[in-house]
């Protein structure tokens, strides 16, 4: 049931809603549907899509970004049209959560313009606006990254876990014991993970796996030992494994040092997107991109500064995906 074509502004109208003080907990029961493609054929494919002319006059050109996203999705799913790619990710009637990364405010967070285009594509694939939820840990973080909180049930919703709440029962795996965000457990049937390409001063890098720290109530407990095995263990919590269907890493800008805060002196325009079903493979490629940039700038590798993200290896051992570069198909488009 694809929506009638709309302008991007109409589609994102939902995000321009009031900062309403609506009651929290407007959860929706899980549908119980099996997620499509949790064991995809492209499990270890990573598309690295780049567009050198992504910006005009210093700001991101939305048309070129949309074209870049389409190119990346078509390449990843090996289809001719973007809508065909999206239909391999979501089905009409599903509620789709878009897990952005907004901790660092503007500059080092998922770009709202990218999320806007993704919302447009989801609607073209038959997802109703009201069935799209853009979420992160805190409403304040979302706002500082340029999103507007929107809680109305008839439009795209933008909400933090501080508004939506967490489960009361612990979910556990290995070193992880957390209350999971209802945005993940109750509201979303499918989650699209939208991390950024960024250095992290404690756990090395923050990419697809670590972005799910935003789905637990206690991420501050998971940074010791350079995040190993915590990042991998959190990702093993069943609702995360079951519902996250795709990762699209916003690599419009990358940051190779000084994260997770935004440090403009250590950011560079990568002008790209990384797309994968396999978050481990995506993280392995993203880490390499960051290392390459560090090397280009004469900086030591993360291993030498005590921040090698060993949890990527641990995640591979858990069976989440593959971190072996020889078994990852890196597709440049």
């Amino acid at each position, binding site marked *: 049931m694809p929506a009638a074509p709309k302008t991007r502004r109409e589609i994102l109208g939902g995000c321009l809603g009031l900062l309403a003080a609506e009651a*929290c907990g407007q959860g929706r029961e899980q549908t119980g549907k099996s997620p499509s493609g949790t064991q995809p054929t492209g499990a270890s494919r990573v598309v690295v899509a780049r567009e050198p002319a992504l910006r005009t006059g210093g700001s991101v050109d939305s048309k070129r970004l949309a074209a870049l996203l389409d190119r990346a999705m078509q390449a990843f799913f090996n289809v001719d049209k973007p809508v065909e790619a999206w239909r391999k990710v979501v089905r009409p009637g599903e509620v789709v959560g878009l897990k952005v990364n907004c*901790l660092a405010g503007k500059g080092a967070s998922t770009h709202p313009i990218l999320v806007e285009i993704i919302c447009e594509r989801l609607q073209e694939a038959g997802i109703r606006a009201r069935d799209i939820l853009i979420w992160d840990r805190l409403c304040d973080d979302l706002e500082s990254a340029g999103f507007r909180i929107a809680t109305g049930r008839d439009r795209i919703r933008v909400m933090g876990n501080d508004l939506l709440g967490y489960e009361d029962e612990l979910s556990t795996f290995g070193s992880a014991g957390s209350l999971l965000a209802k945005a993940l457990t109750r509201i979303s049937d499918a989650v699209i993970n939208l991390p950024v390409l960024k250095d992290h001063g404690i756990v090395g890098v923050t990419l697809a796996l670590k972005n799910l720290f935003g789905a637990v109530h206690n991420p501050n407990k998971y940074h010791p030992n350079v995040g190993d095995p915590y990042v991998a263990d959190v990702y093993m919590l069943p609702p995360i494994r079951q519902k996250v269907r795709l990762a699209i890493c916003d690599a419009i800008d990358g940051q190779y040092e000084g994260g997770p*805060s935004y440090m403009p002196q250590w950011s560079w325009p990568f002008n790209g997107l990384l797309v994968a079903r396999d978050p481990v493979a995506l993280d392995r490629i993203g880490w390499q991109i960051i290392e390459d940039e560090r090397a280009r700038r004469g900086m030591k590798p993360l291993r030498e500064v005590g921040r090698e993200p060993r949890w990527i290896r641990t995640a591979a051992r858990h069976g989440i995906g593959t971190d072996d570069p020889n078994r990852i198909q890196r597709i440049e488009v």
Partner: protein
Amino acid sequence: MGEALDRRTFLKAASTLPCMRALAADDARYVAEARFWEKLPHRKIKCKLCPRECVIDDRERGYCGVRENRGGVYYTLVHSRVCAANVDPIEKKPFFHVLPGTLSFSIATAGCNVNCKMCQNWDISQVRPEQVRSIYMPPREVAALARQNRCATVAYTYTEPVIFYEFMVDSAEAVRAAGVRNVVVTGGYITTEPLKELCKRVDAVKVDLKAFTEKFYREVVNGELKPVLQTLVTLRKLGMWTEIVYLVIPTLNDSDQEFRQLARWVKSELGPEVPLHFTRFHPQYLLKNLPPTPVKTLERAKAIADAEGLHYVYVGNVPGHPGENTFCPKCRRVLIEREGFFVRGMHLKQGRCPGCRHPIPGIWG
């Protein structure tokens, strides 16, 4: 809050993780500049309150989740932000040598600087302050409530008072000025300088020594043993009344060897007069797969510590067990009879055994 609490009023946030945005709306009242931290380049901060020494980016929090870097300045988010308040018997802390039979006004904020797999208060210790219901209770209110409820002490307890250090210190001053004593129930994971400052304002400290191996601290506590032992030594050097609780967990910290090493260390480094409580574990939080501690194990631990020459070794969380009583180490006369958290018989006379006049250490009046 202007009214006295009922004796058993327990304001612990029963339903955790409510709609937190509404709760956060007034959080300016709870924010105060933190103590014991240093600035690092690029608006980063190093917290030096506890041995974890978190390095924190702008807009981030430390491991404990209650201290936040805002633009290169470090703040506590839990000053006067009480998520649990209760009037407890002091035996519940447990303190067995501090004003037996009295009440203790017991308070906590959210947060903790470790993450013990057996935590019985994880719903307030392992969450951020905005994730539990709290009430505004400034230090003068703490002191007033303690007096109104006829409490001999205020106890900073339930979660980990080290992480609400600023609130604890400010409250301790107000409480002492009101003629009430202060006691602290802690895991002892604190650096020396703040510990020394704290000790100027409080009267007794109970340390949860969770095991006697680094392995246990690493795997079960998410902390380290060595700094906790250092805290115990510092407390004794400062003359602070100190009691130790050791929660005995089947298969994890219950070997004869560990009990013996612990008892020997306590005797040699702290002295035989420091009370040592072996308490019973009940499965919860992340350790639900283990059974409750057999009473025989606690008795074995006590027997070993007694044999090593400690004078005051107790069995805890087993109401009615004779190991709850205090005996004279010289003539073995029973001095304080307890059942659970209640004192059934008090035979001490001016801090001495009524039979042989042996002095019993503690705070008795």
